[in-house]
C-alpha cells in the first residue's frame, strides 16, 4: 500500500507542481483570467490519459515504452525551457518592480501567446504523468485479488496528496509579495527546471537514444530511495534521482550554474537575494 502511494505521489507531484507554478505565475502577473485555458488544458490531459489508459487495459496491450519515454523527454525539455524563461523574466521583474509595477507586467503579457504556451505546458505536464498514472491505477484495480484493494486506495491517496501539494505550493506562493514571489519562486523554478532536464536525459536513455556517461555518479538508493516518502517528494518536485548517472549530474550542473548566474545578474544589484519579504 505504501509503495503504490509513493509512486503515485511522485508522478502526481511532478504534474501538480508545474500547474501550481503556472497558476501562481498567472496570479502574480494579474492574468488570473488565463487560468481558464490552463484548466481546460489540464482537463483535456486528464481525459486523454484516461482514454489511453482504458484503451490499453481493454485491448490487453502495453504502452509503447520508447514512444512514451520520448514523449516524456520532449515534454521535460519543453517545460525546462518555459520555466527558465519564466524564472529569468521573474528575476528581471523583481528588480524593476518598484519602477514598473503591474503596468509593465501586463504589457509584457499583452501578446496573449504566452497564455496559450502556459496552457500547453500544463496540458503536457499532466498528460505526461497522467498516462502512467492511469495505467498504474488500472493495474492496481486488475490485480486487486493478488495485491489487495489497499494498493488501489494507496495509489489514489498518493494522487490526492499530490494535488494537495500542488495547492499548498500555490497557496504558499500567494503569501509572498510580488518582488519576493518572483525572486524566490524564480530560484525555486531553476531547481525544478534543472531536475526536469536531468530527467529528460534519463528518459532519452530509457528511449534508447542517449547512451553516454552512464556510470553511476552516486548511489543513495538505500539512504534516500525514491520509493521512500521524502525521496518520492523530492523526485516529484526537483526530479531527484537516487542513483543518477554522470551524464545527468553533468547536465544538471551545466544548466544550473549558468542559469543561476544569469538569474542573479537579472535580480542584482538592486535586490540581491536575501530575506523573503512576506506580506
Amino acid at each position, binding site marked *: 500500500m505504501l509503495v503504490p502511494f509513493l509512486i503515485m505521489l511522485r508522478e502526481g507531484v511532478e504534474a501538480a507542481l508545474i500547474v501550481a507554478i503556472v497558476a501562481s505565475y498567472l496570479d502574480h502577473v494579474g492574468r488570473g483570467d488565463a487560468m481558464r485555458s490552463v484548466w481546460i488544458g489540464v482537463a483535456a490531459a486528464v481525459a486523454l490519459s484516461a482514454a489511453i489508459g482504458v484503451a490499453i487495459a481493454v485491448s490487453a496491450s502495453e504502452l509503447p515504452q520508447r514512444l512514451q519515454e520520448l514523449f516524456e523527454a520532449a515534454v521535460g525539455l519543453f517545460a525546462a525551457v518555459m520555466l527558465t524563461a519564466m524564472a529569468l523574466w521573474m528575476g528581471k521583474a523583481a528588480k524593476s518592480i518598484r519602477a514598473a509595477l503591474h503596468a509593465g507586467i501586463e504589457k509584457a503579457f499583452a501578446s496573449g501567446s504566452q497564455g496559450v504556451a502556459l496552457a500547453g505546458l500544463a496540458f503536457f505536464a499532466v498528460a505526461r504523468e497522467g498516462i502512467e498514472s492511469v495505467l498504474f491505477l488500472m493495474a492496481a484495480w486488475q490485480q486487486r485479488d493478488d*495485491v489487495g484493494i489497499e494498493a488501489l486506495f494507496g495509489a489514489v491517496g498518493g494522487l490526492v496528496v499530490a494535488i494537495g501539494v500542488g495547492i499548498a505550493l500555490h497557496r504558499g506562493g500567494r503569501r509572498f509579495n510580488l518582488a519576493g514571489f518572483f525572486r524566490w519562486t524564480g530560484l525555486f523554478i531553476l531547481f525544478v527546471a534543472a531536475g526536469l532536464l536531468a530527467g529528460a536525459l534519463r528518459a532519452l536513455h530509457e528511449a*534508447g537514444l542517449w547512451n553516454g556517461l552512464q556510470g553511476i555518479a552516486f548511489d543513495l538508493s538505500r539512504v534516500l530511495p525514491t520509493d521512500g516518502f521524502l525521496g518520492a517528494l523530492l523526485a516529484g518536485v526537483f526530479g531527484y534521482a537516487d542513483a543518477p548517472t554522470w551524464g545527468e549530474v553533468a547536465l544538471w550542473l551545466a544548466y544550473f550554474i549558468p542559469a543561476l548566474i544569469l538569474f542573479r545578474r537579472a535580480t542584482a544589484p538592486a535586490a540581491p537575494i536575501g530575506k523573503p519579504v512576506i506580506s
Partner: protein
Amino acid sequence: MRTLFSHVAFIVFASLAAQGAQAADVPTLPIAVTAQGCEPMALTAPAGKVTFVIANKSTRALEWEILQGVMIIDERENIAPGFKAKLTTKLEPGVYDITCGLLDNPRGKLTVTGATAAITPGDLTGPVAEYRFGAAQVLSDLETALGRLKAAGANREAARKAFVEVRAAALALAPIWAEAGATAGPLRTDLEDADRLLFGDGAAEAAPILDKLDKDARAFAAAVRPLVTPADRLVAGALALARGLPAKIEASASPSALSALEAERAAVERVIVLFNPLWMRVNAPAAGAASLALARLKSELTGAGAQTLETRRAAATELAERLAGLPADLGL
C-alpha cells in the same frame, strides 16, 4: 495544439491496435524479482516478439530493464511490490543483461536464440523467378531432345539415348506437373509406354507411341512455359515428389528406372537449391541436413557401389523427412 493531441492519440491507438492483433502467438516468459535478484537469473527466449511477465516479489518499487551494454532495449517502470507487469518486446539474437531490482543486486542474463529476420514475401520472389528461368531452359532442352528422338528413327540405341534425355527434361519439372493441368497426365502415360517400348520387350509398334509422346510433350511444354509457380506450391510440389520416391524404388532396378528416379531427385534438388539460402538463414541445421540427404540419395541412385533396395529406400525416406520442415521454416 488540438491537431497535435489527435496525432499523438492516433499514434498511440494505432500501435495499440497493432499490438492487440499480434498478441495471440507471442511466447510468454515469467520472471520474478525478489529482494536479492531475479528468479531465474538466466532466461532463454526465442528471437522475435516475446512477452515477459514480471512479478515484483521484493518490497521496493521495481524498474525492470533489458540491457545491451548500457543501452536499454526495453523496460517497465513503476512495478509496485506484489504487482505483475507485462512487457512485450522484439529481440534480436544475442546475450542481454537484465536488471534485478536494486542497483547493487547482480544482473541476470537473457539469451535470445534463433534467427531474427523472418522470411518476407519479398525474399521468395527471387527463387520463384529463378525457377521460372531454369524451367525455360529445361523446356528448350526438352524440345532439343524430342527432335533428337524423332531423328533417331529406327536406330534403337540413339532412340534410347534421346528418350532418356526427353524423360530427364520432363521429370526435371515434376514439381510443377500439377500446375500444368491436363497435359501432365498423358505425358506420364506416354513416358511409361515409351520406356516399355524402348527398354522392354519391344513388341509394340514404335511410331504411334513416340509420335504421341512428341505431341503430348510439346503440349506440356506450351502449358508450362508461361507458368509462374508461387513459392508455396513450388515447395509443396517438390516435397510431394520426394515423399513419393521411396515407393518407386523397386528391387529389380533397371538402369532406365534408376535414371528416372535420379531425374526426379534432381527435380527436387532444383527447387531446394533455390530456397536453400533462405532456409540456411532461418534454420541452418535443417537446411544442411537436407543438402546432405539429397547428396546421399544421389550417390545411392547413380553410384557404382553396393547399393541395395534397403539403402536406397532409406536414403529416399530420409530425404522426405529432412524436407518436411521446409514449408514451416519458410513460413509458407
